[in-house]
């Protein structure tokens, strides 16, 4: 009986992946502990301050969530691309254009009421990110140009392009290359004063729900996954794989663009050049960790947010360099991406074999 239940759980691949991932996290932390020890710090102090920094009190937890929000969006963006077999390395650039469009549209129409201004700001960010990502999608469909190469190049154009535009046309007075602040009413309300945690978290969760629904319950989602799994068979079934490539990139870019909108409307309240510490790239790791599933991405983003926030307080209070947590992040990814390590360590076999 117990075996039957266990088998059932095993057959639900979401659960297996979750177990794998938890295992990967544990192993990464064990190796992390060894590194902390070798570096001459106390493992106990390190991990307690890390944990307290991430979850210790309400304020600390809000900081974890603040770090989590952009990663939910960029992680989702990359995951959507993966589902259709596309490697969108350009989330970073799409995020910049999203943030830029949100800021500018709000600054152009400051007189509109909040109820209109906030949705317009969000939509502008999604559209800008989507349009920016659709171009590499179109290039791939038309000419076969690989999206990895084009989206990487597009990142440079995006960061430098926004910097150029801000410097020359939208710069607020002062030494920093940034725009003026957006009006109070266009900002997403804070859930707790002075934490930076805003309604953006709900937008993030809503986006997870929407994308999950899109991929699993809609005809378009079916087409996206069909092209990702086997483009030849998709074409045989009448799916226009080139069209799907463009659409998938556009959706992916729109979600990455939302990350930019959320940062502007929830945290920075203006566009500051080069503001992103690489959310778009961390999104790739988040997607891998989340096995390209929307809910998996949410959990993975939370883990990365916690490591980031906890790492900061570890550095601040225990004087243990935050980089050690970056190493742990890297190890987590390494183990998640290599599930066979799990088999070697636990001695289990035959996890994926099928009758041919």
């Amino acid at each position, binding site marked *: 009986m117990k075996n039957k239940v266990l088998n059932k759980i095993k057959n639900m691949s979401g659960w297996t992946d979750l177990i794998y991932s938890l295992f990967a996290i544990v192993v990464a932390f064990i190796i992390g502990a060894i590194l902390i020890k070798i570096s001459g710090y106390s493992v106990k102090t390190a991990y307690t301050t890390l944990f307290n920094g991430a979850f210790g009190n309400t304020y600390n937890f809000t900081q974890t969530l603040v770090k989590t929000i952009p990663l939910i969006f960029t992680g989702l963006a990359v995951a959507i691309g993966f589902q259709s077999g596309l490697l969108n390395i350009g989330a970073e650039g799409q995020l910049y254009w999203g943030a830029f469009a949100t800021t500018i549209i709000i600054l152009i129409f400051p007189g509109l009421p909040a109820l209109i201004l906030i949705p317009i700001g969000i939509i502008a960010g999604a559209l800008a990110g989507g349009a920016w990502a659709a171009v590499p999608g179109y290039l791939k469909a038309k000419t076969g140009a690989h999206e990895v190469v084009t989206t990487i190049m597009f990142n440079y154009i995006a960061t430098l392009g926004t910097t150029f535009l801000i410097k020359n046309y939208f710069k607020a007075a002062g030494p920093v290359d940034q725009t003026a602040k957006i009006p109070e009413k266009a900002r997403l309300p804070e859930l707790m004063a002075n934490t930076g945690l805003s309604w953006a978290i709900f937008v993030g969760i809503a986006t997870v729900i929407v994308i999950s629904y899109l991929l699993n319950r809609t005809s378009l989602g079916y087409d996206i996954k069909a092209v990702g*799994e086997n483009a*030849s068979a998709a*074409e045989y079934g009448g799916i226009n794989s080139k069209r799907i490539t463009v659409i998938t990139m556009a959706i992916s870019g729109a979600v990455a663009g939302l990350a930019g909108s959320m940062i502007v409307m929830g945290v920075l309240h203006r566009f500051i050049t080069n503001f992103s510490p690489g959310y778009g790239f961390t999104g790739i790791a988040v997607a891998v960790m989340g096995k390209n599933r929307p809910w998996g991405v949410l959990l993975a983003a939370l883990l990365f947010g916690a490591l980031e926030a906890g790492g900061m307080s570890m550095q601040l209070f225990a004087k243990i360099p935050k980089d050690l947590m970056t190493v742990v992040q890297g190890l987590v990814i390494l183990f998640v991406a290599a599930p066979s390590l799990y088999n070697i360590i636990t001695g289990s076999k035959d996890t994926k074999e099928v009758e041919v």
Partner: protein
Amino acid sequence: MDAVKMKNIIKKFGEVVANDKVDLSVKKGEIHSILGENGAGKSTLMKILFGLYTRDNGEIYINEKKVDINSPSTAINLGIGMIHQHFMLVNRLSVTENIIAGQEPIVNNIFINKKAARKDVKDLAERYNFKINPKAKIEDLSVGEQQRVEILKALYRDAEILILDEPTAVLTPQEVEEFFEVLNTLKEAGKTIIFITHKLEETMEISDNITILRDGKKIADLKTEETDSNELARMMVGHEIDFSVDKKEMQSGKDVLGLEGINAYNERSFLNLKNINFKVGEGEILGVAGVEGNGQLELEEIIMGLMNFESGKIYFKDKDISHYSTSKRRQLGIAHIPSDRLKRGMIKGFNLGENIILGSEWQKPFAENGILNKDRIFKYSDKIIKDFDIRTTGSRSSASDLSGGNQQKLVLGRELSREPELLVVAQPTRGVDVGAREFIHDLLLEMRSEGKAILLISSELDEITKLSDRILVLYEGKIVANDKADKFTREELGLLMAGHEGEDIDEKQSTK
């Protein structure tokens, strides 16, 4: 002496028992056939022997010594070599490079001694009488030659026991003959050969002993000389098989499909389709005969809108559909059984339900306004699984878990249940066992009697002559003959397929 002895082998995949207490003994120096339908457990048994799967129970003896095979490298060290149905070769590399891969002769610890390698390969090929150019690139070789490279690869690793998984499935009839010569040479050299197959004639022709599997169980061990194909078929399927077909005369009706002056060029295969003209009417099966690679694939893909063509027109019931998308053509009522079912016909990562609605995922009742209705999808797929006797654990199991014959039934189930008016059927029984083959042929004839138009593309002459009302022969992208089926003899078809024009045939016939 027994080169291989497997005792009481049990292997389960979840709830499915793939091997149920199977015994096998293979004598040294013999050709031993393992015969069974798809899904009977032949490949599983051999993958256990080669260390690709771990058995749940049972013992293995090699040369009468008990061994524990846990990985292919253990198997290779024991002198076992396996030639898979899908070749494991690097297309861009040469024959020599492929053969020595992993066991390269090295100079100064760094460099590959290419000269020595080429000599080794050449000697090896000569010893077994293989015709092969060690410098040729794999991508330039025919399928039959590639197979010989695979065999050489195993021999280079000193294999004494060779496992061949459905080796003839990919070969033309001529290549099969050559391949059998190769097998006999190997046998004379003292090698032990295990031959997995579901083809009765080949089993009778080549093997010394036969082991029959059905539903994961061993049914019988037989000496080839003491049996015949009828007995084998009965044991394999579990009931008598009627090889004859009961084909009613059909009055072919209105034209459903028409091709007019189609010219096309396939950049990948360098094949030109030249001035293709034909029509298929209601209640008619038009067989397209020909050795594979003479334009069949191009024809199939052009009709379905999967490949562009240069000039000409395609008609579906008087409507010019030359520029219609694949999806529009399917919606008009064209069904397609693709020649490459793994590449085109199904999505392995999807479950059966999802595969069964491929192409209908935007249409009612499976979706409304772009939202899928999973209940209806699975209800529909459950019905198809039942109607087409697809052996599976259910609609939600992954398509990759199906055996070859059941995969084909899945494709057939999907396509025929859409109530099409035209069927484009390519290589419908490739890699499919006798039972399923019979089932598929009956289905096609049933479709014909319902008045559907059927274009049957097949490289199996038996299938063409058995089912077709009319036959056309493709050779190097041209139609070299097109007539009523009873106007051709088998010999004529064979010669036409080999590129002899009509006059040549008359000469050959008269000199006989």
